[in-house]
């Protein structure tokens, strides 16, 4: 009965590789998000999608490309990985975009780029 799930939980890869992180929610929510938590624990929004439509792209390098095949899934593809991409990436979802929402977070994917 997992609400927001992410795969993989851990990802270790070398610089220059391309990798993907998958997210699925079974809450019936319309809106999904990607957040990044850096090594100092600071959390920041990257993207949000509402019903498969990109709503927020928070000045993220275009090496990061989110894709939403349906409103229950939001995947994150990262090209040409760099050392600075090492972080924990959290997927989240919320029931509606407007006027209020409560966001629920997945367990996170710890990405380590060597």
């Amino acid at each position, binding site marked *: 009965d997992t609400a927001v799930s992410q795969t993989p939980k851990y990802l270790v890869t070398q610089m220059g590789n391309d990798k993907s992180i998958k997210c699925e929610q079974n809450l019936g929510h319309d*809106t999904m*998000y990607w*957040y990044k938590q850096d090594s100092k*624990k*600071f*959390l*920041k*929004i990257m993207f*949000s999608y*509402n019903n498969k439509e990109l*709503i*927020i792209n*928070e000045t993220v390098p275009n090496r990061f490309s989110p894709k939403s095949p349906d409103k229950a899934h939001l995947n994150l593809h990262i090209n040409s990985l760099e050392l600075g991409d090492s972080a*924990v990436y*959290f997927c*989240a979802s*919320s029931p509606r*975009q*407007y*006027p*209020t*929402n*409560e*966001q*629920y*977070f997945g*367990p*996170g994917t*710890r990405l380590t780029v060597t």
Partner: protein
Amino acid sequence: GIQVEQSPPDLILQEGANSTLRCNFSDSVNNLQWFHQNPWGQLINLFYIPSGTKQNGRLSATTVATERYSLLYISSSQTTDSGVYFCAVDRLIKAAGNKLTFGGGTRVLVKP
């Protein structure tokens, strides 16, 4: 953008003690959430509290939206309360979409 400041940055408690964590924000908000990030890294929803007071067991929270702050109370702390507590807010500018802006967190360590 909106600024979110949490205090104190670090808190060490003896088991059984009570404590108050504070979150100040720089503009009016329509969404405020408190999270607990446990030592395994999971972000657990504690409260969705854009205004008013809520209680859940030993935890309670109060948001005074007009004065732009929220408080999280931990009573009779237990070692399982250790972790980082985050406050996050959303201004909800419709065209811009929803996004939570997080504070820097309060790192709590409860000693047995």
